[in-house]
Each structure stands twice: as C-alpha cells, then as structure tokens.
C-alpha cells in the first residue's frame, strides 16, 4: 500500500475532521444541526460555480464558501431560536432536505444530473491546511469566554441567561462559526470529488457527521476529531473483509452507543482531564486561587443582554 492509494482516505479523513469540528462548535450551545451536509453542499456548489463559471482560484472561492456557510448558519439559528430542542433538530433536517430538492430542480447548477466539470484543485496540503484552520478555530473557540458561555447555554439556558449571557447571540455565533467551517470543508471536498450531486445534501449524509460526534464524544473537541478519524478510516481498515465491512461498521456503532454512551473520549466533571476507557490522556488542570479582579471582569459587550447596556441610574428612574 503506497501513499498514492492512501491519498483519498487521508483527504476525506482531514475534511471529515473539519466538518465534525464545525458541527461540534454548533452543538456547543446545544443545537445539534441535522443540516451539516446541506451547509457543506452550499459551500461546495457556490465554490464550484465560482471556479468553473467565473474562473476564480480555489482560495477566494473557499473563503466565500465559508462566508456563505456562515450566512446560512446565521439564518438557521435565527429561525430556530425559540424552538424546543427536538423541533430544532427536525427543522434543520427539513431545511437540508428542502435544499436538496431545490438543487435537484435547479438546472443552472446541474439539477438531477449533478454539478460536473469541476477541476481538481485539492491536494493533501490543501486539506491539511483546512484541518489546521478548523482545529485552530475550534481550539481558540473552545477555551474562549464565548466557548464557556456556549456550554453554559447548552447545560442550562435559564441559568446562563440569569448570569447575563445572551442566548440569542451565543446560539447565532456558534451556528455561524460552525457552519463557516463546514462550508469551507464542503468547498474543498467539492474540488476533490469533482462532482456535487443533490443527494449529497440529504439527511443520511448529515447523520454521518452526527455519528462522528456521538461516537467520539461531545465533551471535548478531541472527541469529534477521534470519531471522524476512526469512522472515516475504519471502513478502509476493514477492507480485508470487503463484503462485511459495513456490517462491522454498524456493529461498532451499536457497541459504542451501548458500552460508552457518552462517546469514546470523556472528561472528568470538574477539571479538564480527558479520559479513554480508564486511561487519563490529559491530566486535570490544577485548580488555582483566582483573584477578585478575575471574578469581576465584565463580559465582552457582544455577550451582554440589551438590558445590561441601560445605565443603572436610568433604569432606577
């Protein structure tokens, strides 16, 4: 097995890591989007139109695809803001399927015959760069105040709101950032597969990414990475029994759901230790005494509720 035959596996693994991390950011504030494939499709279609019909290079097309993903994500977040958890998932599901139908019947982007004629522009290095961007963005996001605010909103929206976190803004920002990463990965994937078909936007493709997340575990950003790497590479590793590999794939998913319902990687509740089946991969951080200034640091303006911006004196009158 030489490097050339491994290239597709490596590229798909890297891109799936990007998409899983995008979905992880979106899920960080408690909204598990079922439209990942549709957002990736928006990025893919848009970048393909730009490179094929307007002759753009890959990089600006990818950036624009990421922006388009962010716009779609913002829209979805705004629409689903007031919805209950279950209905939110269903709305994103329906949105993805509706986009798929739209692509199916739109002749400018190929309709049912798929968008073809894309030039091969993606190399391993492009995919690797995309993965580094995704990991860096997620890593910074995860540890930022916005990341903590997102987790607070996920765990208890009411309490988070009482602590002065704006649920609307946290949800919109997480959805937009996550969707931007997904759109970027979709654009790069489109320039490797060279065909974008309406079926790639559907529910069952989106479900794959959710499986990555739940398989790896949602508690740390390394869970989705592990899930995406294992589950993309696993069908290839299992190729020795070509006929049975999908059966084994199903079996592995069932076993993980039954034996480790929180995913493969879990975090101990108080610190940041990352554990896998009893082994500590990353030790817990020592809890240090914090100074009063750290406690009284104000929230960034973007996270404050509108009411907080009213001066106290004005409110008292």
């Amino acid at each position, binding site marked *: 097995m030489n490097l050339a035959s491994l290239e597709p596996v490596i590229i798909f693994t890297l891109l799936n890591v990007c998409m899983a991390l995008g979905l992880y950011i979106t899920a960080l504030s408690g909204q*598990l989007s079922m439209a990942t494939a549709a957002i990736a499709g928006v990025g893919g279609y848009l970048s393909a139109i730009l490179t094929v019909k307007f002759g753009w290079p890959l990089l600006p097309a990818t950036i624009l695809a990421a922006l388009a993903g962010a716009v779609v994500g913002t829209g979805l977040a705004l629409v689903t803001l007031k*919805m*209950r958890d*279950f*209905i939110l*998932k*269903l*709305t994103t599901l*329906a*949105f993805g*399927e*509706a986009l798929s*139908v739209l692509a*199916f*019947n739109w002749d400018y982007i190929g309709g*049912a015959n798929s968008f073809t004629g894309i030039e091969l522009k993606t190399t391993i290095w492009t995919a690797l760069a995309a993965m580094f961007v995704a990991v860096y963005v997620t890593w910074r996001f995860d540890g930022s105040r916005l990341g903590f605010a997102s987790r607070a909103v996920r765990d208890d929206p009411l309490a988070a709101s009482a602590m002065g976190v704006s649920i609307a803004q946290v949800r919109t920002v997480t959805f937009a950032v996550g969707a931007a990463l997904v759109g970027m990965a979709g654009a790069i994937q489109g320039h490797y597969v060279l065909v974008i078909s309406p079926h790639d936007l559907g*529910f*069952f493709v989106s*479900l794959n990414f*959710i*499986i990555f997340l*739940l398989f790896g575990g949602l508690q740390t950003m390394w869970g989705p990475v592990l899930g995406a790497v294992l589950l993309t590479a696993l069908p290839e590793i299992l190729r020795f029994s070509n*006929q*049975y590999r*999908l*059966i084994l*794939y*199903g*079996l*592995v*998913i*069932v076993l993980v*759901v*039954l034996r480790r*319902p929180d995913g493969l990687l879990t975090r101990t509740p108080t610190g940041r230790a990352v554990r896998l089946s009893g082994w500590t991969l990353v030790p817990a951080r020592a809890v240090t005494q914090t100074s009063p200034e750290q406690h009284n640091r104000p929230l960034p303006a973007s996270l404050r509720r509108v009411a907080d911006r009213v001066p106290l004196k004005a409110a008292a009158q």
Partner: protein
Amino acid sequence: MDLFLQQLANGLVIGSTYAVVAIGFALAFTVLRVINFAHPDIFMVGMFAGLVAAVEWPALGFLVVLIAGVLGAGFVGFALERTVIAPLRGRDVLMTLIGTLGVAIMLQNGMAVIAGPDPIAYPALIPRRFVDIGPVTLTLRQVLNFAICLALLALVSIYVRWTPWGRATRAIAERPDVAAAFGVNVARICQFTILLASMMGGVAAVSVGVLYGSAHAFVGLLYGLKAFICMLVAGNRYFEGVMVVGLAIGFVEALVTGYVSSSLRDAAAFFVLIGVLYFRPNGLFGSYAT
C-alpha cells in the same frame, strides 16, 4: 375527474402502507421515546422471511407466507428490543436513534450479503387480475394490500383504545413514571409494543412484496423517512392521526405524480412537513411532551 379518482385510489393504496410503517414508528416513539430507525429494516426482514417461506413451500398459500413474515419480523424486533432498545431506554433520543441506525446498517448490509444487492422477484401468490370499483380500476393485489393495511390499522386502534394493555400503553405514553406508580409493568408493555409494531410491519411487508412483485435489501430506506415524516406531521398524541396523515401523504404524492412531475414526488412529503412544522410545531393533532 376519472383521473383524479384513479390517483386518489392509487394514493390511498400507497398511503395505507406508509400508515402501517408510520404507526410502528409512532408506537415506539410515543411509548418508549425511541426513534426506531431499524423499524423499516425490520419491515424488510419480514418481506424476506415471507419470500423464503413462499419459495420453500410454494403450496402453502398466502396466509402461511403472511405468518412467516410476521414471525421473521417479530423475532428481529424482539431481539432488537432486548439487546439495544431496552438498555438505552431513558437516555437521550439521539443515542437510541444512532444505536438503532447502527442496527439498521447491519440489517441492510447483512441482507445484501445474503440475498445480493439487487431486487429479487417475489412469487406471485395472488393472481394478476383487475377489479373495477365504479370509475376506478385497481389490481386485485392493490385491493388486498389496502384491505390488509386497513385491517391492521383498525386492530391497533382497537387494541390501544379498548383493551387493558392498550390503556396501559396510553398511560405510559402520557407519563411513564405515574403509570409505573399505578402498577403498570412498563418494561413488559414496552417490550410488547416493539413486538406488535414489528409484527404489523411483517404483515405489511409481505403484502407490499406481493403488490410490487419484488423484494430488495434496501427497501427500508424508501419507507423509513416517509414514515418518520408522517409521525412528525401528525404529532404523537393520537395514533389515528398518524394513520390519517399516512393516507394523506400517499394521496398527495399520487397527485404530485399525476399532475405536476414524478421527480417532485419525494419532495412533496417534505414540503408538507415544513409547512406543518412552521404553523403547528407539535404536529397537526398535538404531541406529548418529550
């Protein structure tokens, strides 16, 4: 007008199958809070169990083949409940969804290994004959399929409304903890609910196999999403609502195929879903809290 009536009849025949699969989904979701994505593949197993019986003992006739389908689907449903659904009860809806989806992948590809990935001809157990009902012409198989599905729906309705176990089922659907406090054996009822849904799926599967004359390892994909949508559109408070929506979606699809374009047929159900979710997020007939 005749075309309209013909499309109405065709739509109702398809819709009755959607309704039976959707009821299986709805029973599992309402009573156990489980989205059983393996249900359409249990349906597929029932179809193949019937096929095996029909090929092995051709003289036995339609009824025995139906029973074989029921046994095959019921066995898989029972095993699924014991191994995956029961240990995951009370967890997040998404975990059971992923778990049953894993089982679905195993069932589909397992059957594809056994039977091959291509459609297989189903024995012609019912003669190919046409029946005229007023201005509408249907095949005998369509009439039989419709009759079987309606009978199943009626049976479920009677079971849920009029029997003690049915009353326990409704009690669990509303408040599992309170039902348990009043002496309902929740685990037993849950087990029976999955078994019932699977066996109904088995009957419908054999009838659909005979109707289309073929069996396919990936037939579940076609029915799974549609049945899921039926359940969401109707909401899970009334099982009868799910049945009506199943019939209605079959009807809408037939109209879209007849008057608009067949490529939009599969989209019709999603437009119905988006419209209903927008105006009535809990479904047309309301839902229990999840």
